[in-house]
């Protein structure tokens, strides 16, 4: 299982589901919801927080918060399709 905080810089993924109820409400209203494509675009100098591109803008979040978002790496999705 991959979570959003495990993405490498420049990597894209698709949001699957959330493990934290409260944060999920916040993520959804920020346009970061299941089936949405996200891309890791920045990591703060101390390694935390991170910034993702989602729904056409950049959203910053702490790694701890990112770890509550389950994602599928986009490469995997493409691979599954071709198989």
């Amino acid at each position, binding site marked *: 299982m991959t979570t959003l905080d495990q993405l490498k810089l420049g990597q894209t993924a698709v949001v699957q589901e959330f493990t934290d109820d409260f*944060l999920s*409400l916040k993520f959804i*209203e920020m*346009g970061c919801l299941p089936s949405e494509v996200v891309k890791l675009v*920045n990591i703060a*100098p101390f390694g935390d927080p991170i*910034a993702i591109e989602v729904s056409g803008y950049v959203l*910053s979040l*702490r790694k701890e*918060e990112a770890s509550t978002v389950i994602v599928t790496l986009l490469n995997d999705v493409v691979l599954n399709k071709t198989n």
Partner: protein
Amino acid sequence: MSTQKTTYHIALVGNPNSGKSTLFNSLTGLTQKTGNYAGVTVEKHEGKFEHKGTSFSLTDLPGTYSLFPKSIDEEVACKTILSNASDKLDMIVIVADATNIKRHLLLATQLIDLKIPCVLALNMIDEAEKQNITIYKKELENLLGISVVFVNSRKKVGLEELKNEILKAKVSDSIFYNFEKQAKAFPALKSYKELIDLQFTCDADESKLIKQFEKEDNISRFYKLNYIIAKCVKKPEQLNKSVSQKIDTFFTHKFFGFLFFFLILFIVFQFVFFIADLPMTWIEESFASFMNYTANALPPGELNDLIVNGVLAGISGIVVFVPQIALLFFFITVLEDTGYMARASFILDKVMQKFGLNGKSVIPMISSVACAIPSIMSTRTISNWKTRIITILVTPLISCSARLPVYALIIGIMFKDEHTIYGFSYKGIVLMGMYLLGFAAAFLAAFILKFVLKTNEKNYFIMELPVYRMPQWQTVGMLVFKKVKLFLFNAGKIILAISIVLWFLTSHAPSNVFAQLEEKALVLNTPSDELNAQKLEHSYAGIFGKKIEPFIAPIGFDWKIGISLITSFAAREVFVGTMATIYSSGDSDNTETLREKLASEKNVVTQAPVYTTAVCWSLLVFYAFAMQCMSTLATTYSETKHWKWPFIQLVFMSVLAYGSSFIVFNFLK
């Protein structure tokens, strides 16, 4: 729309960073009124405009991402829409960013479901065009069921059309919420508005149900929006890495990011310290000459003294802060407006989080090197309540510019200019040490408060990093003006009241002691500065100063310092002036003579020097930590709307100051 009414009430609603404030300014111009919402320190902006003979009253609501609030600002926005929906609010102007239309339309669909007449203003349409985003207006109007107006609030494009559409605003026929699901979960509720209303009054079980509904409903809204966007918006397939993201690689860089951050701080402080100094001196001098003039113009007596030394001196003490506050707010607003502040928060959040603060506490903390008042006022950008309170409570520990004269006087007693180590003057090193001590104390206090304060509010950092934009100078100017006004009227009232009390204490004495002193002075031909010293000694403040001597003796202070502690409760820098009066060193601006007098001051009985190293260090530490600034307390009150917080601030800082001075004094004695 009914035609009987004379003024229609409109609310301006949108996400943060949708350009709402600029649109508000463009629509209402200089007719604005600013205040706070009842009971909370969320700013309320109201303005008026007229169009084709109809007058409108416009309220700029705090930005919100949805009608299910996640912060105090958002709660105020939602509650204002709801409480007014039945009678006062006639329509809503929804403001959305055309370059980021999908996320901004989530709130729009929720507002449409409230069944209030709405108009959608698609702002920043020029930027959307630059990015080759095409929006089909007619299709969007059909699907949303409301009028859509393309607006560029910065260039004032589309405002006439927006006003025309406001005149014709109607309730949409479209419904976006899942009414079947809502009817199943909440059979008693007849509308979407009732559901939004319910979240503020419901019990825990209902709250859980509402959250479940919110989640599913918002997801389904986005699916509907995906369809709408596909129909109405044409976007270039592959977006290049945006300019903002390119700038970010520099501003959030491990090395250059911090370099730039400190460069900005350096520039801000150059301005705040050196440029604000000019108008501040000018204000002080103008007030001094005006007070002089008034004192001579009015018939002498009690009233004269009250007006000049009580009221005018109090007002002068308030107004003198204005240049610093205005300049600091100017920079803070520009940093906010350009989007840089979000990046500063981003690079420093990790460090600040360890101390119960977050990235957004950085600027208030650093601004308080100049003055704690604008710092406390700028904590409004921190949406998390606990983080905001901690920031407010600890910022006054950081050494502000008012401590500088006190530090300079005392350090000057201990060290001479000749005292150097490796070519660095001791004076400079100690002064720097005092500033570091302030920062250390603030962070330590924050760290402790992190465990003491309890909150149910979740602390998160899910925050939009807005695209970089040029600041809107008119909006910046308006905001600075509003902040200064807020300070003058909110904190000003309290400061003035305390100034008058302090005036009474220093200029009045029991029975006719002053008259006796004056008679004696006349006989002995005492110089006037010595008479003033005697008067102060026998005034109520002097009596208190002597009364508290047993309490301050353990930290090495005598009654003379005691009097100065009382008078400088208004503001720290008053310490120097009072000491000058007590030691009757004449011109209070001439600290050189005062310093010599203090250095040579001997105990009457033992003939030992009074200002020993131990006493000096004790004084330094005391002034570093003590809450000797009623302007700060008044601001804390007006920013927290509760006397509890300034009281806690006063108590913990006093205890810290006394305790530290006690340790320092007894260790060095």
